[in-house]
């Protein structure tokens, strides 16, 4: 007897008005997951794609084979970068609410994902961020004023007023330009890594993508190329559980994890607690060494939670329980690193407060300076002629003519 075929329509574990439910999350105890040799084949470590690498235990001690044994001074730097990222986010969100910038994207709760990874890499490694990786910008020392100028689209804007706020870049800091269209950075990072290998350079590339965006074909092409050529690249999926209003299971399908996409392509997939600074650092180091020594790419799934709205144009209360963030079982990355440092005797509440004050002041000073370059309503403005530059290397005659028409039209109105 034939029966009608069926469709499975995935359901978010909880929607507004329901109790948050994270029972779908597979967790491992801190220290429980083995650390293989970097030479390992993907097929030998498929278990790593469903377990969860964790270093910090419930008593805030670092345990297990993945413990990276970092100097406390390094950990303090990590804490500083994460705090700066969070304060910067909060302040920029506020300025957006005041109408001083048009748009902003926070990464609250996901700071370790970017900060620990960037610290685990070498300054010359090339980074291909998504739009929620501002921690990379912080670790690479992008001046706050430069970031703010981009957000303000002002006369100091590295993008010359052309890109959406948060689409930063810096060739000096080796941070690739962020794209508004998702997933494109993944094949580009693989291409960069292959080019580095073709040219005989020692640098590797790393890229980040949201779990929602990992549905895009670019993600899959990138994995295939990274596998075929054993490209020296680290491919990170930031699984923060939500892609705007769509829960992670939509992009995962029936796969047990995003890391599990790796072995299918012949790439080891590591699933890691993205809110555990030490664990993120350790797996990134492992993947970097593997890439540098010619053993190829690694796919890392960072399990974390988007504690903030998708962007300043989004209201998550419309699609997920209001108290979901508080119930997130992997805690807050800043609180966890702070607690670990305190347990080590390398940190204290007074030091924390002092650091917060110092960083707040740093953000305030930078904002004042950035405003001198112009805001949406005041100060100097970008020269409209800039609109015609950089479309091509050399300004073609038709654009020269259009630029002149615009100048003449503005002059006729008594502007410019």
């Amino acid at each position: 007897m034939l029966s009608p075929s069926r469709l499975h329509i995935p359901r978010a574990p909880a929607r507004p008005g329901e109790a948050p439910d994270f029972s779908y999350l597979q967790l491992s105890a801190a220290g429980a997951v083995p650390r293989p040799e970097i030479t390992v084949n993907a097929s030998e470590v498929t278990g790593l794609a469903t377990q969860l690498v964790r270093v910090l235990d419930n008593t805030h001690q670092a345990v297990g084979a993945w413990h990276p044994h970092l100097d406390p001074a390094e950990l303090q730097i990590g804490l500083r970068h994460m705090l700066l990222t969070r304060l910067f986010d909060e302040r920029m969100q506020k300025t957006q609410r005041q109408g001083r910038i048009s748009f902003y994207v926070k990464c609250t709760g996901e700071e370790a994902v970017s900060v620990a990874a960037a610290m685990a890499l070498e300054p010359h490694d090339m980074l291909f961020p998504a739009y929620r990786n501002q921690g990379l910008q912080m670790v690479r020392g992008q001046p706050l004023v430069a970031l703010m100028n981009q957000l303000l689209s002002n006369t100091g804007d590295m993008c010359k007023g052309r890109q959406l706020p948060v689409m930063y870049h810096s060739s000096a800091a080796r941070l690739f330009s962020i794209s508004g269209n998702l997933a494109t950075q993944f094949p580009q990072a693989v291409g960069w890594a292959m080019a580095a290998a073709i040219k005989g350079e020692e640098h590797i590339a790393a890229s980040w993508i949201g779990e929602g965006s990992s549905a895009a074909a670019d993600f899959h092409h990138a994995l295939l190329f990274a596998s075929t050529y054993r490209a020296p690249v680290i491919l990170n999926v930031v699984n923060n559980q939500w892609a705007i209003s769509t829960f992670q299971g939509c992009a995962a399908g029936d796969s047990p994890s995003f890391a599990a996409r790796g072995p299918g392509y012949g790439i080891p997939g590591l699933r890691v607690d993205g809110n555990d600074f030490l664990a993120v650092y350790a797996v990134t180091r492992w993947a970097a060494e593997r890439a540098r020594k010619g053993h190829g790419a690694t796919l890392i799934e960072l399990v974390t939670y988007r504690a903030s709205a998708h962007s300043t144009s989004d209201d998550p209360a419309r699609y997920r329980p209001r108290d979901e963030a508080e119930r997130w079982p992997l805690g807050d990355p800043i609180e966890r690193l702070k607690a670990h440092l305190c347990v080590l005797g390398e940190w204290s509440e007074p030091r924390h407060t002092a650091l917060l004050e110092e960083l707040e002041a740093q953000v305030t000073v930078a904002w004042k300076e950035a405003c001198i370059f112009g805001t949406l309503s005041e100060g100097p403005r970008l020269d409209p002629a800039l609109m015609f530059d950089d479309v091509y290397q050399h300004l073609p005659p038709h654009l020269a003519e259009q630029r002149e028409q615009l100048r003449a039209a503005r002059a006729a109105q008594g502007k410019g």
Partner: protein
Amino acid sequence: MPNKNIRDAINETLKLEMRRDPRVVVFGEDVVGGLGGSSGIEEAAGGTFGITTGLAAEFGRRRVLDMPITESAIIGMAGGAALTGLRPVAELMFIDFIGVCFDQILNQIAKFRYMFGGKADVPLVIRTMIGAGMGTGPQHSQALYNVLAHVPGIKVVLPSNAYDAKGLLTTAIRDNDPVIFCEHKAIYTESCEVPDESYAIPFGQAAITRTGKDVTVVALSRMVLLANAVADRLAKEGISVEVLDPRTISPLDTASILASVAKTGRLVVVDECNPFCSVASEITSLVACEALSSLKSAPVKVTAPHTPVPATPHLEQLYVPSPAAIEKAIRATLAG
């Protein structure tokens, strides 16, 4: 008659068509919203711009599907589903994302009927958001409808008001050819009188939004609003401007354009796209080829410059055709 804005008119049309025909389904990213909790329909997000609010609640999650973020698959599977007789309305959040699904549109959906020897209907609508004016920069502000209008086999619709949005979307959903329905993101809240019941506006029929005798202004999408405002202002000076909104650019109502130019003898085309190989060029070439003798002066095209769209509002404002530029063009045709 009640006033409705474009967003609500589209939402209402989707509901009416889904009630009328169980084969109509909605596919896209974030189209379901927060449904499922005790939140009620009101709180359901229903699309990032709220266009699909309430659909999943009324029609169930089999007919309103949130999909993974991969437009090539969304559009490709919607094309496949359309061939089976379903009538999908697939949402491409921003037309800029056409880059990743263009092969399905260009080489498949547009050509199915032709390549299959006429044996297949392709009742697919792709709703998408176009245009500048919201500071969304080079990758989220393009208009690009000219690129689609260039492809034989698909129809391209550009509603400029809520009344037309409803009537044209109805036609699009009932049409057996693939239709790209281009919603301008900066005019969703523009409202006008819209009947509650369903009605269809045929494709290929322009609307004259202002009647005049001195100059014809053909304007597209949001540019119709600007052209209307300029026409009203110039009327006070005694300049009589006829504004023509083609409403669909593929098919294009060439007869109405030619008839209007035959009357006025002057043509201005206002098009937010880049000028090279644009609909503005198509319409001026139409008039040059078919109605040269009725022209009293050279046609003028008012378009964006041939550059990407800048993000910062100050530059974006200069980028998009302005009322001042439209007025200047009208005066130029009158002087010539």
